C-alpha cells in the first residue's frame, strides 16, 4: 500500500492546496518498506488528484486542505487524513501504530 504525505521542512505541510513536496511511503504489513519524494508541480485540483492516483496512493496524510481539492481526491478513491501536524517521522510511526488520531497530531482548532 502506498501512503502519501505532503511535507515541508521535515514537517507536514500546512496546506495541501499549495504543497510542493510529496513523500511516498511503501507499506507492507504495517511496516514501511521504502520511501521516496515526488515534486508536486501541478496547481489544479484535477492534476493533483490525477498525480496521486497515477502514483498508486491509497491514503493521503496532509495538513489543511480546501474542499475543492479534497472532494476531487476522494472521487479518485483516495482516503484523506486531513489537518495533521507534526514531524514527518513521528506522523508515519503514529500512522503505522494506529496513534495518528492522538490530539498531539491535530492542527489547532481541528
Amino acid at each position: 500500500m502506498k501512503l502519501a504525505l505532503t511535507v515541508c521542512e521535515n514537517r507536514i505541510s500546512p496546506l495541501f492546496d499549495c504543497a510542493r513536496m510529496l513523500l511516498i511511503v511503501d507499506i507492507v504489513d504495517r511496516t514501511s518498506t521504502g520511501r521516496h519524494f515526488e515534486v508536486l508541480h501541478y496547481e489544479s485540483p484535477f492534476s493533483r488528484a490525477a498525480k496521486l492516483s497515477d502514483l498508486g496512493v491509497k491514503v493521503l496524510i496532509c495538513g489543511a486542505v480546501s474542499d475543492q481539492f479534497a472532494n476531487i481526491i476522494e472521487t479518485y478513491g483516495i482516503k484523506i487524513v486531513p489537518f495533521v501536524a507534526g514531524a514527518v517521522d513521528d506522523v508515519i510511526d503514529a500512522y503505522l501504530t494506529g496513534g495518528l488520531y492522538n490530539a498531539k497530531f491535530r492542527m489547532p482548532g481541528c
Partner: protein
Amino acid sequence: MKKDKLYQIPDHVTDVILESISDGVFTVDHEWRITSFNHAAEEITGIPRDEAIGKHCREVFRSNMCETDCALRRTMNEGKPFVDTSTYIVNSEKRRIPVAVSTSLLKDENGIVLGGVETFRDMSLVEELRKKLDARYQVGDMVSRSPSMHRIFTILPQVAESDSTVLIQGETGTGKELLSRAIHELSPRRGKPFITINCGAFPDTLLESELFGYKAGAFTNATKDKPGHFAVAEGGTILLDEIGDLSAAFQVRLLRVLQDRTFQPLGGTKPVKADVRVIVASNKDLSKLVKSETFRQDLFYRINVVRLDLPPLRDRKEDIPMLVKHFISRLNRLRGRSVTGISQKGLALLLSHDYPGNIRELENIVEHAFVLCPNGQIESHCLPDNLRVLLRGPTTHAKIDAALQSVEVQVIMDALKRNKYNRLATARDLGIHKSTLFRKIKILGIELPKLDGRTQQKRAR
C-alpha cells in the same frame, strides 16, 4: 514631565484595543511560535486562543503563502513591513477564507526585534460582492459586458419564470443553446429534463418519430414502443433548433402540437398530453422567411411570443477579452492546465478577426491555442494560421496596433453614442475611470460633438 504623563498609555489599554478591533492580529517569536492571538483572529480562523498560543504559526494560519512565500518571513528577513497582501486561509471546515495580510517587525522599546506581527482582514464579504458584480455579466455559461446582451440578461429571469414559448434568433455559434439552457435553469422546470433537437438534421418522417416517438408495429422493425423527445422532456424544456429548416408539412404538425399541447406518437391512436416548455431557435430571420412564404405565418405568430435576438460577436467585440478569460479558465479546469492568460499581441489578433462562426469559433481558437501553449501565456504564435496572417510582413506590429486601436475607437464611439456623449456615464458603461476615457479619447483622436452629455442635460433643465 506633564507632557510625558499625558502620552503614557497603560499596558492593558493596548490589550483592550487589540481585543476590540475587527482585524485578526497575532505575534510570533523567532521560532515562529505564536505568542499572542487576539479575539478577531479567533473569530476569523475559528481557532481558540489557548490552542493557537505556542504553536507553529503556519499550522495555525494555514494560508497559501505559508510554505513558499510567507509575508512574515520576508518581513523578518528584510526588516520591512508588507501591507495588504491578498491570500486565503483554510479553516477546519475546509473552507477557503480570503484575507488581506499585513506584516511588520515586533520590537521592544530599545529597538530589539522580539519577533513579528501579522494582521489579517477577512475579505469574504468583499469577495462575495465582487462575485455578485461579476454575476451581472454572467448568466449560466454566457458571459458578456455588451449592453445588447445585458438587456437580455436583465429580462431573462422574467422570461424563464413565464413558461411562454421563446424564439431565439442569432447567427450560428452565438450561443442559442446556451441561452435556452440558461432559461431552463432559471425556470421552475429546472431539475426536469432539457432536451435539444436539431430540426434541420432530420427528414420529416424521422423527425416525427424522434419528436413524438412511435408505437410497436407502427412500421417495419418497430418491435417495441419508443418514446419521443416530447415524452422524454415531460415536465422540462425542449429546444427545437434550426426551426427555419422545417418542411411546410411538418410546420403544420408542429403548429398543432403547440396549439393543443398534445402530440400523437406514430402508430398511436390517442393524443398524449405534453407538459413541456418549448423554446425554438433559428439562425435565419423567420420574419423574412414568412415574407418569402417559406415559413407559415400562423406558426411564426405561435412561436414568436417572446423573442430574443442574440447579436453576432463582431457587433460586440468588447466581449472578446472577457470571453477569452472565461474559456481559458474553463479549459484550465477541464484539462488541468495552468494557462495564465493571453498576450497583448495575441489579444490584438483576436480583436482584428470578424468571427463568422461567432463565439463557437472563438472558443475553438482558444482550444487550438491550448494545444500549442499548455502553460504560461497564450502567445500569438499559438493562434491558428488564418489569424496569424496579420503577423506576416514587415509592418506587422503597426498592423496589429492599428487593428487594436480601430476596435478601441469603435467600442468607445458606440458607448459614447449610447450614453448621449455623457463622458462620465460612458466611462461607467465601459468599466473604466473617466480620466482613462479622456486619455483614450485624446490619444485615439476621437472627435466629439460640441455638446456633451452634461450640456445637453443642463439645456433640458
